[in-house]
């Protein structure tokens, strides 16, 4: 009987694991715990979320050099970091594309772009394209706001930076800012998930 029970437990555990893997493939939803990583920055050093002892959370943005939507948001991403890094929510930018398919997104091009635009945050290469599928990023730019909790870095917001890709001056709703502001105040996030057009992440077929 004991063996039978043990078997049941094992089967149940396998079923759970299988289910978890399946969920991961689709990426995170709000409330999930985001994985940490160790990715190469444009200065050659490895960066992990765990390096940020003082941070209260993170604004993780999957972005790249070659997507016009990402380019349209570069200044606004810098502004987000300048505004929120000191409040405990630094921007961590991750470039998810295959660099053979998009040479304009390779580490040298990333370094040049970061310098030209005055990036104040790490710009990491998702080498091996291992991290973005776990988050469930499908396009650039794609934002994940994380909050440090006892359980880990909890996903609090997924989606767009704001509601106007064309014109930063004509923005009505700053979704990412609103999400971080709510976290800072300890309030509910009004729009925890938003959508925007972006460039599909480039993967070898």
């Amino acid at each position, binding site marked *: 009987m004991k063996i039978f029970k043990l078997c049941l437990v094992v089967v149940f555990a396998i079923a759970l694991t299988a289910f978890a893997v399946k969920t991961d493939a689709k990426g995170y939803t709000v409330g999930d715990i985001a994985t940490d990583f160790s990715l190469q920055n444009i200065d050659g050093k490895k960066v992990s979320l765990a390096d940020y002892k003082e941070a209260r959370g993170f604004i993780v943005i999957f972005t790249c050099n070659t997507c016009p939507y990402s380019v349209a948001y570069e200044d606004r991403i810098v502004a987000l970091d300048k505004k929120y890094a000191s409040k405990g929510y630094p921007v961590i930018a991750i470039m998810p594309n295959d660099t053979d398919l998009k040479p304009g997104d390779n580490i040298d091009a990333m370094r040049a772009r970061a310098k030209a635009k005055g990036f104040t945050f790490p710009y990491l290469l998702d080498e091996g394209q291992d991290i973005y599928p776990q988050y469930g990023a*499908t*396009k650039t730019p794609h934002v994940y706001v994380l909050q440090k909790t006892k359980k880990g870095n909890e996903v609090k917001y997924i989606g*767009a930076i704001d509601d106007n890709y064309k014109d930063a001056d004509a923005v009505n709703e700053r979704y990412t800012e609103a999400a971080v502001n709510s976290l800072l105040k300890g309030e509910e996030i009004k729009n925890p998930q938003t*959508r925007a*057009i972006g460039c*599909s992440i480039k993967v070898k077929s």
Partner: protein
Amino acid sequence: MKLILFVLSLCVLSCNNSETHTAKSAPTNAKVNTVMTSANNYKLDVYDYNGLAPLINKKDDQVHVVNFWATWCAPCVKELPYFEVINTQYKNEGVEVLLVSLDFPKDYETKLKSFILKHNITSKVVALDDTDQNRWITAIDQSWSGALPATIIYKGDKRNFYEQSFTQKELETELKQFLK
């Protein structure tokens, strides 16, 4: 509407203007801008989502293939010829292709129109210019994260949405589900 456009194009031709921008407000919230250039005389209709919605929800007997793309989107440009093939080869089987460009408005003249002419695109092309993406992306399909390219194939109430790139074969396989 077609009559108005026809009259307008006559006017443009007879006036021999180098360029005319016409904005018309339909009775609904829909907006249609028609940009014409006599140099190539290519007419591009520009819609907001309310204007586009009737074009991607037609209740006729045709099979509609709607592809969301942009000239800056490499995988979109790669698969565009496959949609062109569908448009010509399946026309007689009641298939209609609509290419919805998400190019930036500043690029309509310089990039989009020249692309259409250079590649001899025969499918109908319209442009969607609506910044409230958070509203219309989910209105087009709940599952769409917003990545390009994306495609809808529909006939009446049967409707499939694809947030992916196609090969010619894959596209035809999906289309054939609707031709039975």
